[in-house]
């Protein structure tokens, strides 16, 4: 009871800190919208303010879910996966022969994966998609009889499931990790992951806008610069280290974990951008004002969640 109360306090401190940041960001955004005059800068500020408004909504949903307990959090992430997969498959050239396969992917595999998180069946959770879905879904496509681009179509559906469902489900799976000497660590670990990833994204954006000169991969994403990457990743890792009080880690461990999370997040952004460029779009969707689609917002979590989950599980659980 005592311990629970203490953890609740930490969660509340984290929530309070995030709210404080958002208030600050909103105030700065409001100030800039009043002072900035140049047309191009105004567009940037307008986009930034749209992003901040969307942040308020996303933080609200996330905090409510995490405070309401595991089931609600699992449902929230399951729904996020569903929306992300929907965006991913939309950009993927599937054929009518894939229709039933896709139906299975959306309405059988995705709910089952999150059901396994909810019932804490780690063994099946970790192989459902890489083993069963990978082998059985192509069977349905083959049975439909259309061989055109079969390998490419199959790979695209599998990759979509992997990124949007399997990887994302590792975030709520943090809630089932049991860490010795640290009860109910799950919600704090999840909060830590999401906070560090998103801070890193925001800081990379800010450093990139302020100092960005040399693009990392100009053909993939002109907005990702070496300066933005270094500034964002290092600052976010340092902040992550300072959040050690809210985690089972000590300062250096929390720094190292944050570095892992932010690097993986950066890789995620890069890979998902490459897919967007190949498909000739700027964003995966248009659901969240200023951010694009769900997948544009969670691309870094897709990559960071499995890394963070497995490293934490190996060293601490």
């Amino acid at each position, binding site marked *: 009871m005592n311990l629970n109360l203490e953890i609740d306090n930490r969660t509340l401190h984290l929530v309070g800190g995030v709210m404080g940041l958002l208030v600050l960001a909103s105030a700065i955004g409001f100030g800039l919208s009043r002072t900035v005059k140049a047309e191009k800068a105004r567009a940037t500020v307008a986009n930034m303010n749209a992003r901040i408004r969307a942040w308020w909504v996303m933080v609200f949903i996330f905090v409510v879910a995490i405070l309401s307990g595991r089931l609600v959090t699992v449902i929230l992430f399951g729904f996020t996966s569903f929306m992300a997969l*929907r*965006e991913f498959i*939309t950009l993927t050239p599937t054929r009518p022969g894939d229709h039933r396969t896709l*139906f299975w992917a959306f309405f059988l595999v995705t709910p089952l994966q999150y059901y396994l998180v909810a019932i804490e069946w780690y063994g099946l959770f970790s192989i459902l998609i890489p083993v069963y879905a990978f082998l059985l879904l192509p069977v349905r496509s083959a049975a439909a009889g259309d061989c055109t681009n079969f390998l490419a179509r199959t790979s695209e559906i599998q990759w979509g499931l992997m990124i949007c469902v399997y990887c994302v489900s590792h975030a709520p799976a943090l809630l089932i990790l049991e860490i010795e000497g640290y009860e109910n660590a799950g919600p704090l670990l999840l909060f830590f992951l999401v906070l560090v990833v998103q801070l890193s994204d925001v800081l990379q954006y800010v450093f990139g806008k302020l100092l960005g000169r040399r693009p990392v991969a100009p053909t993939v994403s002109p907005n990702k610069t070496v300066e933005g990457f270094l500034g964002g990743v290092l600052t976010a890792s340092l902040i992550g280290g300072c959040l050690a009080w809210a985690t089972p880690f000590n300062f250096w461990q929390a720094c190292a974990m944050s570095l892992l999370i932010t690097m993986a997040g950066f890789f995620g952004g890069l890979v998902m951008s490459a897919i967007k460029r190949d498909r000739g779009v700027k964003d995966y969707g*248009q*659901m969240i004002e200023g951010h694009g689609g769900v997948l544009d917002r969670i691309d870094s979590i897709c990559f960071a969640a499995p890394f963070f989950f497995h490293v934490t599980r190996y060293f601490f659980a």
Partner: protein
Amino acid sequence: MTASFIVGLVRLLCGAYPRWQGCVPELRPRIYFSNHTSNLDAVVLWSALPPAVRSATRPVAAHDYWISSALRRHLAQRVFHAILIERKKVTAHNNPIDAILEAMTGSTSVILFPEGGRFLNPEPAPFKAGLYHLARRRPDAELVPVLIDNLNRVLPKGEVLPVPLLCSVTFGQPIRLEPGESKPDFLVRARQAVCDLRNR
């Protein structure tokens, strides 16, 4: 109630994001004419309209299909307020054009699929004459071309279960029947107006 449930379901299933490119949503008599690739077309176009416009817009639909079960009948009559027209045995008594014109009172708009059926080709089939007759008899109504994209992947012909994918509904610039324009010319031009929205 049912209407907002259906709109929510459509949003969840296929996004149905409206893109108003050639006009803005307005309460005035309009004829929205669109390509037809899926059974969900009418519902999706209807859902893409803002609520006020939606409640004054009636899809034109096949009588035989929509009265075939109690649920369909309820949806067509009470939710979509569809104008049900006869497509098999057209006589002077049940002329579809008259039924549509009769329904277009005040600022009531209609949704029309002038191909007269669903086809597997990505490009729309040649338009049937109904749009021309409506344009001639209601010159005041705006003819708004609409392109529904990607919906045939959500529910391809012959499938029962839908797959959730993002679709877009693009509203183009209204066209009108020019003085002296022949029926074939007008129908080709109207079809082209829908096709032209694809690469915008």
